[in-house]
């Protein structure tokens, strides 16, 4: 295990009932790095992502085996409180999902639940909104409903919301798939900036996006990792024939 790696998996498998969605995956993710998980639909990349902060716990009939090591602890250990794990490993979802609250409250709510005083909450909200490149657009209407924002703004609000808690890892599950190209470009720029502070793991179905934003790319197929390499490497000289075929569009 590399010294820099902040979160890693060891022989991680996830099954829904009889169907094995992720099979024996051992990977390491480093801080200040963007990793892209790519692969065709149903290859297990989203399931793998959700396994990293125990979001699969809410699905029925899910069995997880193997380990996810975070801060030297297996998060699937029975002694671990999954809620505390999720506070340090944030998540951004496919569809922007702001709460039916004001823009301010969307970010402030969870922060407040951690026991911060209101002036600290305000500060954190501002920092998070600035960090998510949203502050300039919303600073005059913090009290209005988050639903008044455009889809791209909503997604940046969701990123701000996750950032405000000061996580170490941010998981993003196809964060741009519901967005138009302009909004997508903004999120991609944002990811590049966030890399300075967080370990970011992005699931994407868009290979060009993976190439643009990531430092490392992991190619999933049928629940297994086929190849995990530096992005420039994997897109130029893939080691595996399967990777090459996928990247050149032979199958998808």
């Amino acid at each position, binding site marked *: 295990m590399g010294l820099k790696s902040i979160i890693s998996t060891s022989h991680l498998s996830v099954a829904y009932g009889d169907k094995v969605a992720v099979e024996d995956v051992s990977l390491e993710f480093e801080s200040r790095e963007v990793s892209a998980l790519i692969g065709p639909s149903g290859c297990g990349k989203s399931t793998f992502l959700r396994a990293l*902060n125990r*979001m699969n716990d*809410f699905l029925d009939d899910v069995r997880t085996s193997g380990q996810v090591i975070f801060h030297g602890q297996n998060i699937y250990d029975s002694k671990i409180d999954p*809620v*505390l*794990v*999720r*506070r*340090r490993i*944030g*998540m*951004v*979802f496919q*569809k922007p*999902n*702001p*709460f*039916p*609250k004001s823009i301010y409250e969307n970010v402030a*709510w*969870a922060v407040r*639940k951690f026991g911060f005083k209101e002036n600290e909450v305000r500060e954190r909200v501002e920092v998070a909104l600035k960090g998510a490149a949203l502050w300039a657009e919303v600073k005059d209407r913090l009290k209005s*409903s988050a*639903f008044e924002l455009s889809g791209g703004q909503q997604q940046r609000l*969701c990123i701000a*919301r*996750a950032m405000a*808690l000061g996580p170490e890892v941010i998981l993003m599950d196809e964060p741009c798939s519901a967005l138009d190209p302009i909004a997508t470009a903004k999120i991609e720029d944002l990811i590049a900036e966030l890399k300075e502070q967080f370990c970011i793991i992005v699931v994407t179905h868009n290979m060009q996006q993976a190439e643009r934003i990531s430092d490392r790319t992991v190619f999933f197929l049928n629940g297994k990792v086929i190849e995990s390499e530096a992005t420039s490497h994997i897109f130029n000289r893939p080691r595996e024939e399967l990777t090459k075929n996928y990247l050149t569009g032979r199958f998808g």
Partner: protein
Amino acid sequence: MGLTKLNLKAASAEGSSIGDPSLTSVDSHGVAAVHAYPQVSLARSWNSPSGNFVEQSLQYFLFACALSSVLTTFGIVFILLKEMSGFFSVVSVWEFFTGTQWFPLLSPARFGVLPLVSGTLMIALGSCLIAVPIGLLIAIFLSEYCPRGFRVILKSALELLAGIPTVVYGYLALTFVTPQLAKIFPQIEVFNALSACIVVGIMIIPTIASVTEDAIHSVPGYLRDAGYGLGMRRYQIVSSIVFPAAISGFVASIILGLSRAIGETMAVTLAAGASPKLTFNFFESIQTMTAFIVQVSQGDTPAGTIEYQSIFVVGFCLFIMTLGTNLIAQFVVRRIHHRI
């Protein structure tokens, strides 16, 4: 060629005149070609095979059905108003709405409706006080915490509760609830408002629980995911995200329950008695508006008398109260939606 034949057939079926039958011909190259389209009537006709007649008559029939409910409402209001005019030609409106005594069958008769209104409000509010918290907690448990196997049992138990005839609740109040209450509160009367509140409360729990559960259930899962993703605990998500998002359904359920409690007749007639009193003592016997209507309708009060007319007036007041609650509910729900 086949296509053309089909068109011709359709055209004749529409009952329109068919144009030149020799629409297809063989061109100079000997290939069959369509030179012109057959004339197909697109005009409206009531007996076309596309079901125009069915469509039309169905539309009128549905309209008649919808109209019947409007006519019934107006009919009922008309009858109520007609009987009321007779009543108010004898009793002044002022006396009716401000009088604190209701003795329609005594002589001299007193027609102050406040004791009946207070009785109805006691039952409505008292039973909601019992049913709203319990119903809400059941709804939250059902939708957020309940294991799947137990959910089926709980839901059927609630449905069963809703299916028990109200008269059964009435005599349960009288023969079971009141004797139990008497052990704790010896001063309680045989007929009392408290036991009626308890059984009416139990009666409306299923309404409140199921309407609220539907509302909570319809809160999209991605909002819960968002909460979990932020490391929130389930109770925090339920109280700060899910419940506020479902609040309009919760308010609607309260109003439904309230309407039911206001209109509830059999259980309160049996349990709360028939002593119209302007009181807020739940240990005493009272009379609700509905129980009074039962009392007079069951007796041999001759039509056309002032006592007889009084039930129409009381009925109209009930109608206004339920209408009022429903309007308030709509207003509240709209305000909440607007805010979100």
